[in-house]
């Protein structure tokens, strides 16, 4: 089923159900330019997500330069009734002016066939017929740092 979005808006937001120790719904910006999903620290607090047990913090590259972010583990993330997980997401402060609690990145989006119908303002997420990507993207290992 399709979810409506404003084709003229500067960003597209989707409702995500985030399961840490506590389950919360929040609006996230759909961001195909983000390799990882990012949540604001206060949101991570309220869902009581625990630190991921490996490779933390993770180096990240933003438009403003290089930085690092902590990783936390979500039991699951649900979009339009489809659930993936467990998944490790990044926790780092986002601009206070951003009208969303996080960014929904490719680590979760690649579980779906994503259709953005700008003519009709409809976003459709279609789960793959099999779970074939599950094993490869449920967890993440940072690539080795490049030599200077």
């Amino acid at each position, binding site marked *: 089923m399709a979810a409506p979005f404003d084709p003229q*808006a*500067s960003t597209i937001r989707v*409702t995500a159900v985030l399961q840490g120790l506590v389950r919360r719904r*929040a609006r996230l910006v759909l961001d195909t330019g983000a390799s990882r999903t990012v949540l604001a620290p206060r949101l991570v607090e*309220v869902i009581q997500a625990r630190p991921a047990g490996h490779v933390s913090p993770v180096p990240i590259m933003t438009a403003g330069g290089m930085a690092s972010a902590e990783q936390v583990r979500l039991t699951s993330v649900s979009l339009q009734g489809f659930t993936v997980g467990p998944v490790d997401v990044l926790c780092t402060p986002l601009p206070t002016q*951003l*009208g969303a*609690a996080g960014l929904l990145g490719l680590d979760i989006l690649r579980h779906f066939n994503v259709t953005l119908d700008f003519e009709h303002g409809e976003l459709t997420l279609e789960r793959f017929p099999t779970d074939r990507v599950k094993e490869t993207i449920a967890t993440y290992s940072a690539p080795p740092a490049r030599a200077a």
Partner: protein
Amino acid sequence: MTDLVSIPETEKQYKDEWLLFEVVESSEQDEPLRGRLLCHHPDQGPIYDHADGKDALDLYITFTGPAVPDGYEAVL
């Protein structure tokens, strides 16, 4: 206890504010449909403060304004 409201309709009534709902009904696609408005504020901090300690409730956090403020562009 606040009244049950339509969440999509209530979102339209608050411009450029962060809202915190307790969700009592949602669609099969997990979109919140009906619930109680627990808090609204121009800043997100009070919303998270209000959500603390309400672990048993199904809460929904949203912002009714644009994700990127008018006059700004978003880039990676």
